[in-house]
């Protein structure tokens, strides 16, 4: 039996882990890196690049390098988050035929599940190289706030990558699992996740093996890269003052500055001072110019202190949303590479009045938790019980534009609930059922997961026919719905799919295209 891997499909970096000798272990790639940038690009000579190679051309060939596509997955083109990405991203985002955002690079349009699938395929390859065996199954993590469409698209991405996705689990849940927190008694846990491009804070409640997400908050456009940008900006200004040369328009110089800034930032988590040396960064009539600068931890903290403080405002709000006092939090878990920064650890400790958990690398903890979940799924005798909850209420649109909740948020999944509806007009022969997910009482303010029509209702005065609609949310948080006319017994069952979701035929076509590309490369 081949092994099941756990994958943290991150906005900025991805990580893959597997259980080895009973212990979850992160799998390094050929370069020895334990995380891989979630980036895909096409070089100027047409080569497809994934991971570190794609990252290397992120600035010099920005229009053809995709990053943070996780912000777009499962959303509609008109979604404010997508529109914000369009404003901020150097690559082209266009409206797809399914009203979904698509990314156009190298003259080809890619769907978001396809981009995620390319990254997942790379993680699969890393695992296969390390294990020397084929890997076919995986557990993949998603943010706790991901709705049905985003979860379905992530599952599609797994399929595109050639993986059967056994389970989709919430990232904070995975982090808690990696620390074995499901084995302890009733506790409230804060998971502070500051990654490369996003910040998430989740308050979890552990009770009898059920992990409930009490509240989640954050900023999908804030992360370690904002810190890198501040450093780059500082270096550019300093270099201009000292040499008179402006590097802002020089993409090669900016790429080097970005790489150096990221490295300096990481080094300053371990040391008080770093030397940034970038020889031949520019040249003028006097010859080559070098950038040699000493950056201290104090410098860095003054440059980015406000960003760290901003995350704590979200933490405060999250505690309010969860109805939890800060003093009631039993454990704090740090997730994401940026939480290695001493200033982050200091401020989080001060905020919660307790030291965060250490012992597991913050940029590996989610993948490790996914591997633990994978092992639990394979082991029928496992004494571990893990139940997640649905992050958003599920219901349908009703007359007058209202939203009728059928499954409240934070209900333990899997769950199944039914409700009887009726017609609003005499002799109405069909009803259109709009399935929505969200917390607003107004239907239009929630996410439309999909809609379907139940036809063939027997002619009757309004209010008389009884139509029973059953909703199921599986352990992955994925929704399916069936409707039945109680008098005729006529039934329709669908897996709800948002308009942005890919059809099976589209997925198959994408898989074929990628297989063909790989064959061409080998040819």
């Amino acid at each position, binding site marked *: 039996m081949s092994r099941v891997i756990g994958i943290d499909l991150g906005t900025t970096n991805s990580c893959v882990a597997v259980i080895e000798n009973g212990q979850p272990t992160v799998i390094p790639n050929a370069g020895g890196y334990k995380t891989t940038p979630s980036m895909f690009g096409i070089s100027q*000579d047409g080569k497809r690049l994934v991971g570190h190679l794609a990252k290397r051309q992120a600035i010099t060939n920005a229009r053809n390098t995709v990053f943070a596509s996780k912000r777009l997955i499962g959303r509609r083109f008109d979604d404010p988050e997508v529109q914000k990405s369009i404003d901020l991203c150097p690559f082209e985002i266009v409206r797809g035929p399914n009203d979904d955002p698509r990314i156009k690079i190298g003259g080809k349009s890619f769907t978001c599940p396809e981009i995620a699938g390319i990254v997942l395929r790379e993680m699969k390859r890393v695992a296969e190289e390390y294990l020397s065996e084929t890997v076919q199954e995986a557990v993949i993590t998603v943010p706790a706030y991901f709705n049905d469409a985003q979860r379905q698209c992530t599952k599609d991405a797994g399929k595109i990558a050639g993986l059967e996705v056994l389970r989709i689990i919430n990232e904070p849940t995975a982090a808690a699992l990696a620390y074995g927190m499901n084995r302890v008694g009733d506790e409230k846990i804060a998971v502070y996740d500051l990654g490369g491009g996003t910040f998430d804070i989740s308050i979890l409640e552990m009770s009898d093996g059920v992990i409930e997400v009490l509240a989640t908050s954050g900023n999908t456009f804030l992360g370690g890269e904002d810190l890198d940008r501040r450093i780059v900006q500082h270096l550019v200004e300093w270099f201009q003052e000292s040499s008179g040369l402006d590097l802002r328009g*020089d993409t090669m110089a900016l790429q080097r500055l970005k*790489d150096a800034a990221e490295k300096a930032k990481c080094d300053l988590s371990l040391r008080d001072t770093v030397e940034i040396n970038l020889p031949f960064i520019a040249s003028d009539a006097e010859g080559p110019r070098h950038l040699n600068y000493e950056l201290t931890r104090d410098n860095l903290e003054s440059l980015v202190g406000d960003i760290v403080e901003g995350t704590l405002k979200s933490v405060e709000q999250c505690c309010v949303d969860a109805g939890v006092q800060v003093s009631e939090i039993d454990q704090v878990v740090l997730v994401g590479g940026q939480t290695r920064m001493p200033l982050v650890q200091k401020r989080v400790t001060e905020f919660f009045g307790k030291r965060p958990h250490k012992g597991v690398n913050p940029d590996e903890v989610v993948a490790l938790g996914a591997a633990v979940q994978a092992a639990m799924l394979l082991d029928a005798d496992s004494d571990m019980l893990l139940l997640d909850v649905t992050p958003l209420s599920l219901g349908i649109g009703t007359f007058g534009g209202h939203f009728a909740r059928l499954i409240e948020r934070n209900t333990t999944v899997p769950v199944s609930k039914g409700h009887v509806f009726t017609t609003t007009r005499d002799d109405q022969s069909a009803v259109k059922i709009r399935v929505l997910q969200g917390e607003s009482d107004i239907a239009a303010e929630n996410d439309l997961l999909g809609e379907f029509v139940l036809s063939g209702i027997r002619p009757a005065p309004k209010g008389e026919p009884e139509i029973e609609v059953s909703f199921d949310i599986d352990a992955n948080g994925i929704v399916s719905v069936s409707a039945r006319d109680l008098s005729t017994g006529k039934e329709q069952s669908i897996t709800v799919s948002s308009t942005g979701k890919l059809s099976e035929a589209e997925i198959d076509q994408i898989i074929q295209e990628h297989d063909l590309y790989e064959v061409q490369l080998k040819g």
Partner: protein
Amino acid sequence: MTVNASRAAQVSDLLQKGLELYGTGDVARAFLIWGEVLELDPGNAEALDYMRDADRRTRPRSAEGPARSLLDDARRLLHGENAEAALELLASAPGGRSFEVEAMVELLRAHLYEQYRAELGDLAAVPRLKAGGKADLQTRNLPPSAGFLLSMVDGLTPLSDLVSVSGMDRFEALRSVCRMRAAGILELSA
């Protein structure tokens, strides 16, 4: 269609396009197109033949005075197996370039590209910073593009990938690597 077949079709189209441009008298653009062929298919004999032939045929017609002397000097250097110096000479020429000079530049680039490819061998080789190569690095006179390439050398990435992700003109990237190798800054390992 495989990548190789697709590239062959592209090469064939470009060769034809170059000939058409040459036929209309647009020699400079014909040279650029044939240069593209050599980017796709280094050493393409047909492209090199066209370029040499076009250079020979256009040579006596229009270059005069200083341009003529510059071209003659460049040709002498090329025949003396010093295409690098010939290219430097033309690059330092003041004012706008005539199409003969442009054509000569393309020919030299094609010649040098072949030379670099032969010198570097398999592009799957991995460039590494030579022991001690970093010590006096800042005392050398390298252009920013060389500094950029150098910053990407990590001892893991093959030369072919390095050239791809650099986004630099392939000729310039290989030229830069050859120069740094000759200067004892870089070495290549299998």
